[in-house]
């Protein structure tokens, strides 16, 4: 018996299978003290307990049988399943623009392994064409699998790798780049790529899905279609996130990489531009810019600035009442070079932290203030406390989002450690990470139960 034959089984369940000479994919009859069960033994999920054998019944349902109830297992057949995503030849069309899709590991296009429940990513152009045939009508697609990571595992090394690869593809003549990405840290990557890939002549569109494409109600296909369209034909040549606007299947929004944030753990319309309007909406090949100015497609590729650098010794401190100074001290003691504070209100922390902040500053740590309210500006002149904190060397970052500030500080420290130089880079916006003004519709968090909101909800299918 091989490990494949016992896939996922441990402890008592594994012993039972060995004793009964039964294996995964065996077609079996199991006698239990509850009666007889017939089905196919399935691999066990690694995280599940070691007390049950999983059986697929002929009706397609799975059930688990407790080892203590099982008297006998008899194998009457063996049916191993092989999985493969169908490949269809993605037909090239010289009339269409060329888009490169770089995969980092999200499940933008995937198919469920129907027997085990595992997700098989669809990735090659042929697989993608099989899953989303509409892509053929949009562009010629070239795909590369850069990484196979869940988005929580994506970090600076991946950002730098992506930046380099994007540059190569653009130099090689791609009309647009699409990056498939898990959604959890999509906005971190979007910010990082904005800083690392500057002056791109073509759009760089980051896309993912909140419901993987193995579900009929998935947002994946629409996101992918719109992302490819935005990459191939969109006018805005910047790093943009392309995800659902409303929860309804209506349109995607394109968000600038430095102002976008995942705002709900599971909603389709989770990505929102904070403190500004999104850049564009896109639906059924209709691309409607929503704000100007933006960087137009068609710039000189030689003007592109690729800066894949990052100093990992940066942290975010999310302030809470009664925070103790040792939180700051321990970062300094551990050699951190940069701290982004997500402060309360206009950008505050309590007095007991002051000596520690002073010490950190004197130790050469770069400390920046953002707001945990997400919307609005740091304003440290309004109260004495703010002025006191600035005197300690803490620099306000206006309305830069805390995560964006984290990414930018890491990127900046990758270039220089000079205090003034760092401060200059941090406070000079590259792509709206700090905006000069908040437009009148920059802060929109509607509240249910109000007649006007109820009317909107009832009337607009959002």
């Amino acid at each position, binding site marked *: 018996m091989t490990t494949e034959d016992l896939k996922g089984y441990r402890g008592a369940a594994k012993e039972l299978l060995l004793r009964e000479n039964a294996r995964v994919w065996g077609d079996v009859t199991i006698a239990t003290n509850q009666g007889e069960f017939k089905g196919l033994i399935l691999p066990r*999920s690694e995280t599940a307990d070691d007390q049950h054998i999983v059986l697929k*019944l002929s*009706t*397609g349902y799975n*059930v688990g049988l407790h080892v203590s109830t099982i008297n006998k297992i008899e194998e009457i057949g063996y049916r191993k399943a092989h999985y493969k995503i169908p490949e269809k030849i993605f037909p090239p069309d010289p009339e269409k623009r060329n888009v490169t899709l770089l995969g980092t590991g999200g499940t933008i296009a995937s198919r469920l392994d129907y027997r085990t429940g595992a997700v098989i990513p669809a990735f090659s152009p042929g697989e993608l064409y099989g899953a989303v045939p509409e892509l053929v009508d949009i562009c010629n697609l070239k795909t590369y699998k850069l990484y196979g990571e869940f988005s929580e595992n994506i970090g600076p090394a991946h950002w730098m790798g992506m930046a380099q690869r994007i540059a190569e593809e653009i130099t090689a003549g791609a009309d647009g780049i699409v990056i498939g990405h898990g959604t959890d840290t999509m906005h971190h990557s979007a910010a990082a790529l904005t800083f690392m890939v500057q002056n791109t002549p073509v759009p760089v569109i980051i896309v993912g899905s909140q419901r993987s494409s193995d579900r*009929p109600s998935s947002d994946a296909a629409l996101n992918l279609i719109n992302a490819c369209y935005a990459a191939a034909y969109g006018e805005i040549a910047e790093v943009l996130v392309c995800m659902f606007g409303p929860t*309804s299947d209506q349109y995607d929004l394109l968000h600038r990489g430095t102002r976008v944030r995942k705002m709900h753990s599971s909603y389709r319309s989770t990505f929102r531009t904070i403190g500004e309007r999104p850049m564009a909406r896109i639906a059924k090949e209709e691309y409607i810019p929503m704000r100007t100015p933006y960087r137009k497609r068609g710039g000189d590729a030689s003007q592109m600035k690729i800066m894949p650098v990052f100093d990992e010794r940066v942290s975010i401190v999310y302030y809470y009442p009664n925070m103790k100074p040792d939180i700051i001290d321990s970062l300094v003691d551990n050699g951190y070079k940069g701290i982004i504070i997500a402060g309360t209100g206009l950008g505050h922390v309590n007095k007991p932290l002051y000596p520690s902040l002073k010490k950190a500053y004197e130790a050469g740590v770069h400390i920046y203030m953002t707001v945990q309210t997400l919307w609005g500006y740091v304003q440290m002149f309004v109260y004495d406390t703010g002025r006191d904190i600035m005197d300690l060397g803490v620099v306000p970052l206006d309305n830069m989002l805390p995560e964006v500030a984290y990414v930018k500080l890491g990127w900046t420290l990758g270039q220089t450690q000079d205090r003034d130089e760092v401060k200059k880079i941090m406070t000079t916006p590259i792509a709206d990470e700090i905006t000069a003004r908040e437009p009148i519709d920059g802060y929109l968090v509607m509240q249910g139960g109000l007649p006007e909101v109820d009317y909107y909800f*009832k009337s607009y299918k959002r």
Partner: protein
Amino acid sequence: MNNNFDPAAHKMKSGLEVHHQILTEGKLFCRCPAGLYTNKHDAEILRHMRPTLSELGEYDGTALMEFKTKKEIIYLLDYDTVCTYEMDDTPPFPINQEAVDIAIEIALMLNCKIVSEIHIARKQYLDGSIPAGFQRTTIIGVDGWVPYKDRKIHIVQLALEEDACREISDIGHVVTFKTDRLSMPLIEVVTAPEMVTPNEVAEVGRIIGRLLRSTGKVRRGLGSVRQDVNVSIEGGTRVEIKGVPRIPLFPALVYNEAYRQHNLLKIKDFLTTTIGSIEDLKADEFDLQAIASKVSHRLIKKSIEKRDAKLRGVVFRNLKGLLRMTTQPGLTFAHELSERVRVIACLDQLPNLLHTEDVSVAGLEPKDQQLLAKAMNLNKNDTAIIAWGSEQDVKTAIQEIILRVQEAFGGVPNETRQAKSNGLTDFERILPGADRMYPDTDSPPTAITLERIEKIRAQLSRPPWELEKKYTELGIAKHQAEILALHPQRAVVEAVLAKNAIDPKLVVWTMIDLGKHLQRQEFPIQLLEASHWEKVFALIAEKKIYREGLDLLLTFVAAHPEEDPEDYLAAQNITPLLGDNLQKKIEKIAAPNRNLKLFDDSNWPKVLMGIVMGEIRGRAAGRDIWDIVKNQTR
């Protein structure tokens, strides 16, 4: 039944899937309340369903069909009854354990084997009836049985699953659903296809229904039960008739489906003898736009003028007669085509097609027939069909017509059908394959301990048919025994009967007959709890109330469930008049009335009885009162 067709002679087999909502406070995978229906909605969302690849890398038949229809799906959302889980914007919460307990209880009642770990599966539905595109469902028990006549009908499995949306409308390319019912827990009982006559299907349906109701843990009322009936005959195919609300409809539906399959097999024979195999089928498609404006048929004219409809047609060479062949009673093969076109091409204004074999007034006039014959090179043995609508829809329609005729070479297509109240069925969709089941990666497996199963087994009530037998042996009439066996308060009755203090007939009369009588007068008798009934029966046993006073007592208890009924009896002066007290009371009432002038003195006892009853109704048995009254002299 309209002719001599005998399903049993064609080895008909039929099975049932009974879906019954269960009585829980909350829904199955979220914390919304269950059982609240509403007509208001506070928001709408719009979704589409895309088919997903099957294991073999192909889209399954249903999936593709639903995608062809390209429906916009609108969900109406009500603030009180749904949350973001039902919208498919929040992952499932852990499964409702109250529902699992009820499902285990029912599975045990059905003699099923209980699984020791439940795995949530996703069952795909692309018709939009579930926003996620799949229903979460899980097996609780397998391989059970219910007794029927002298045999067992096997129960394949008992599943616990979430209910789907209620469809409000399906017009053209827009289907609208209400979501209040979505995700309410229900159980699905699947029988083996072991019923062999239309009546057996109904009888087994009743047995299962009674068994479920006897637990007292299933919902009642409109929409709480839906049944799917599957039918096949020898040489036919298993066809599922979906969502039959009432058992009395079963026999006609089963009979008509068996008859339909029989006729589809005849059509298969016709096709093979007339033209041979499917490769020999000649279907010529025509774009009839050039002659569209010349067609005089009113409906086509109107569609072309008002909605810019396109006209297309298809000729099947040498198949004259095909479209007039019978399928269901009173329907022809043309109806099968029309149904496909309605569902798949979304041409839902009937008639959605016309053909050259229709010689009725509604059909094509000779002038149109000639026009079309010329445009499509129609020979005398050919048959032709035309359809009209938007360019895309009408193309789909013609494609679908050809597909359906091709399928006819195979006899009975694999499909699900919709029950109509006249016992006939309409096409619903292609029967989904086993590939539409796959594991729910959002939910962990959950163990059901042996301890838990045994605890539920120990409290299991006996099946209704056993209870009925027991009750009739106690002298209770059969029709009352049947009701009592399903009565939520039957435990109280059994306890009272065990004490042997009251006549069983009186007990049953009080709870069932009097209860129902008062309920009809809108007294909320059904809300009385066990403690109320125990008190009522204690009062009867202690002779503190007579049968004659029970209606007053019950209505009081129903209206004042918190108060002590004994106080009420005293206050209302309806405590029983025992022994001499009755005699004395009647004499006292009689005394001032002895001189009443009567037209006929022989009426005196009856008149007095009326007066006495007016004063002491309910305080003594009527018979005892009469015995005293009739001896009262003038």
